[in-house]
Every structure is written in C-alpha cells, then in structure tokens.
C-alpha cells in the first residue's frame, strides 16, 4: 500500500540511553512531588491509606515504564535520509509522521549539543526553512557534523528561490 520505502538511516543507538537518563532526570522530581503530595493527603486523612499506596505505586509503574520503554520505541521508529533533493524524515510509533523538506527550501542548518548530549558524544541537526525548523535529534558527533555539512552543501547548490 505504502508506495515509498522508509528512509534508511537510524539515529545513534546511544540515543536510547541518553533519553532514558534525561527522562529519569525529568521524572524523578515529578514522582517525588506526587509521592509527597499523596503522603500529606493520607497523613491528614483526606484519602485513605490503601488509596494513597495504590496511587503512588501506579504512578511509579507508569513512570518506570515510560522511562524504560518509550525511548526504545521512539528510537526504533525514527528514520532519516539526506537525499540529493530532499531531507526525508519518519518518526512516531502510534502516530507515524513522514516529513519531506526540499533542499532548495533550507535556509540554514545547525548542530546542537546540550550538556547531556555532550557527555554521550551526541548532537542534533536542526535545519530551518521559511516555514519553521525540523530536527534530527540524536546523531553521533561526527555523523552530525557530516550531515550538517552535506545539507549545507546541497541546500546551497539547489538554491532557486
């Protein structure tokens, strides 16, 4: 049914570990806050103890599942390909999004490294058109640099605006 084969390249495998770590860093304070909140409510008998325990455990299970499983799913469904004429992206597990950006429309391209990304030797490639930016989120440093340069060269030679 689908006429177009998916893009070939995958993100760097270390992206999964990176996302697990950043997910944990974001989730832990949240889980703690919820735990403390429910604890206070239980202490003052606003909710009964079993309800509180169930709520905290459910929250914990959800958080762990999210941090452990989601990065893997995201990584497995992220594909990209830098073609001669277009950048081809596909991502999403439940909702699958296929994006095509013509080289001729790309105005400039950046690599970005956040503090965590630097630890892992990873970088994002971000490219801008007159209708907004798109991102390839986690590539190995040298791959990101090559990708950025390749997009920059192709975007320049195909400039017919």
């Amino acid at each position, binding site marked *: *049914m*689908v*006429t*177009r084969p998916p893009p070939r390249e995958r993100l760097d495998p270390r992206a999964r570990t990176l996302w697990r770590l950043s997910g944990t860093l974001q989730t832990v304070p949240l889980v703690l806050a919820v735990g403390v909140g429910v604890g206070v409510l239980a202490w003052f008998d606003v909710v009964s103890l079993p309800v509180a325990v169930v709520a905290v455990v459910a929250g914990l299970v959800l958080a762990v599942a999210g941090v452990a499983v989601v990065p893997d799913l995201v990584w497995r469904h992220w594909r990209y390909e830098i073609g001669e*004429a*277009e950048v081809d992206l596909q991502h*999403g597990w*439940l*909702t*699958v*999004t*296929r*994006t*095509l*950006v*013509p*080289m*001729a*429309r790309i105005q400039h391209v950046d690599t970005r490294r956040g503090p965590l990304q630097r630890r892992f030797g990873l970088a994002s490639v971000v490219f801008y*058109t*007159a*209708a*907004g930016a*798109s991102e390839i989120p986690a590539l190995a440093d040298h791959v990101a640099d090559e990708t950025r340069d390749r997009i920059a060269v192709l975007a320049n030679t*195909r400039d*017919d605006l």
Partner: protein
Amino acid sequence: MADGFDVPPRRQHPAWIVLSVVRSLRAFALPLVILLFTGGREGEAWFLAVGGGLAAVGVASRALAWWQFRYEVTGGELRVRSGVLARQERFVPLERIQAVDVGETPLQRVFGVVGLKIETAAGGAAGSDVTLEALTRADADALRARLGAGRRGVAAASGAVAQPEAAVTGLRADGGELLRRLSMGELVAAGATSGRIGPALAVISFGFQLVDDVVPDWFWERVAMEGPGLSLRGIVTAAAIIATAAWLLAVGSTVLTYGGFELRRDGDRLQVSYGLLDRRRSTIPSGRVQAVTVAEGLLRQPFGRATVRVESAGYGKDTAESGILFPFLRRAEVSELLRRAGLDFAVPLDATPLAPLPDRARRRYAVQRGALSLVWLAGVLVAVAAVVPRAPWWWGLAPLALVPFAALYGVLCFRDSGWALDEAGRFVVRGRAVARVTTITAPRRLQRREVVRGPLQRRAHLATLRAAVASGGGGGHFALVHLDEGEAFGLLGRLGPDGRRGTGDGRRT
C-alpha cells in the same frame, strides 16, 4: 546600488512619544476605568500621587526611548538602533525586505505623521519586522523611495523591467493600474455577512457593565418594580435588540476598516489600500506571494461571495486584515482578478474538478469533526451534574441532542474537502473549518510536506497530508485529513522536486 542615495541616521518625529504613551495607556484602559469608578474617596490623594508619579516616569522613559531610536540606510542595509538600557542594533539587508506598509491612524493624522511597517523575510519571528510609527510624510517618502529602489535594483538585476517610482505622498493609492475597487454596496454587504459579531457583542457587554457601574442601584430597583418583569417576551426582545446592535456594530466596523478598498497593480507589485479612520496601504511584490486562499464564510457562501488573501513570507497573522487581497468578491470573479494581478494562482475555481476523499472517510468526519466533541462535553456535564446537588445527572446529556447537527456538519466538511494538481503545476486544496477555504499554491512553493498516520487511520489505510508554505507567523499551513494512504504518499512524491521534474513546473522566477 548607489551609496550616494543613502538615508543618513534620523530620529522619528517627536509625536512618537505621544503615540507610544497612548498605546501603553490603551493596554491599561480597563484597569484605569475600573479604578476611576471604584477608587475609594479617602485614598484619592494618595492614589493620584502614585498614578501621577508612574505616569511621569512612563512619559520620561518613552521620551528617552524616542531619543535613542535611530534609523538609517547605508551599505545596502536598513539599520535601526534602539533601546535605552539594552542597546539593540538591527541590520536588514534591503533585498530581504518583503513588503512595506504605510498606515495612518486618526491620532497620527493629528500630528501629520504616518507609520511605516517593514516586513522582512525572517518568517515572522517576534520582532523581525521593523516598525517606524511616526515619520513625517517627507521622511516616509524618502525612506520608501530608498527601500523601493533597493528592491528594484534587485529586480532589474534579475531581468525585470524597472518601474518609475510613483509619487507616494498620499495614502490614497496612486500609480499603477486600478484592478478592482470595493463598491459601497459590497462594503455594506461585506459588513452584514462578516463574522465580526463576536467582538461587537464583547463591546456591547462591556458597555452594559459600564452602564451598570455608573447607574445607581435605586434605578434598577425601580425598573424591576415598575417594569414588565422578567417575562419570556422581555428576554427575547432584549436578545433581539442586542443581536441587532451587534450586527450594526459589525457592519460599522467593517465599513471603517475596509472603506475605500482599492487593489492596484504596478508592474510586479500589488498595492492594497483601505480604511476610513485608520488608513492603510501595503505593497506586495507579486513574486513573493506563496499561496492564495479563498475563504467563503458561512454567511457568504450562499451568496457566492468570498474573501481573498495572499500568503507572503513577510506577513504574520498580527491582525485580521494582514495579507488581505480583496475582502469581498464574487467567487466567479476571483480567478479573473488573480490573473489580472499577475499572480500564478489564477485557477478557475468552479471549472477545476477536485479529487474527493475516499468514501470511508465520511464516517470519520461525521464522528470526529462533529459528534465526538459533543460526547466529551456530555461526559463532562454529567460528571458536573453528578457532583452538583439537586441537579439530576442526566441533565448533562443535553448536548447529545445536537449530535445529528454535528454529524451533518462533519459530513459537510467531508464533502467540501478535496484537492487538485493541474497541468500548469498548481496545487489546490479545499477544506472547511467554519468557512470553506480553498488554498491555491504551487508545489515549488512548499517548504515542507508531511504524511501523518494515526493508529486508527493506519487500520483504515487513511492518512493526513500536511504542507506548509513560507509565511510570517503561524499561517501558511494547510492539510487534507483522511486521504487514501496510497494517494497521500503518491501526492507526497509528486509535490516534491523529483516528482514535478518535466511536468512544466521547471520555470524559475
């Protein structure tokens, strides 16, 4: 580009201070009015002192800002320096300027100044446009001539014929060929069918609140005692009066906004000028137009009338009027007007057959667009009613009565959706939110194309095609929801640089 034609560093007219103070006052209008009416008697002196002090500081800071703001044209750039504490310098290359708008509000008229808004190609990122709010006409003309010369220099270099600069002293359109003027009858009809009743209602309700605050309570009590009481007829009459007033306000505001609307063509530039109180005039280079949208509002569609807008890299969605090409036009006239305007998008609307969505999308439209939101609403209301004492929970089911209408609306959305890709390489997409909107663009104008498939869509082999053209602000996006999956991917390819090779769309501008 001749450097001898530079504009030396200049300040704006001092009237800028007044305009800027008035603008900030407008933002505080509501709190001020409330304070004036409710301000305690005993605290009055204190209140006035603090208010006066704040006002003095405000005016002084505006004056400083005026003193620090300077613009100049040099080295092929417009340079603007501003900021009192944090100095800011903005350099805009002249060839990056997308459009120059001139405007004049009644207050600006008092001081004999005009406002200039310079739209840049920075995609509408906040603060990417340069606004000069108070220029004397002479300064505005000099700057416009210089900016226009920059643009023509570029145009001439790419082989276009240079146009002689028309005199730009007035805000009335001048120079070029008059394409279409909005007649008085059309103006009133536009107001009568505009969707502006909402804002008008807000104005009226604010007026009522004000009256309520000012009129003493004993008056209302007397009215309640001697008046006809709260009868059904009274309510209906009041509602009718309010609705009529809102409608008249809507007509009035449309007449003020679009009065004297003219569309002119001057070579490869389009000029739009309109407004009775706030006189505005914008210049759009026709080569920069990315897409044309034709919107047929609910009240206008039955009469075959539509609003035509252009999507241009410079224009954001800052006001309802931005990018307007013609506010009220017979649908049958649209393509002829676009052709005479020299735009590539002159698709005959009624003679272009649109490919419909697959039949299996109909049910989805009926459910998702129409009925589902009502079911959610009913769910929430049932929950609320269950909590509120003495309200039976089934009261919450009331919205379900509207489900058939919602489903009908969904089916209408389905029937109005469609697309076409003609031999001349023009891509037409039609859809409906409230108004029926037809977007006309060219594949080479598309900045990004997407096929999105949700889990339910994948099971039914349906997909949503989304595309975006260059646009200031959030505009320029359009979508076809629930296309056949194969068709969506086919279109995704055909709209790309590889797909359209050899289809006659290889020409460059």
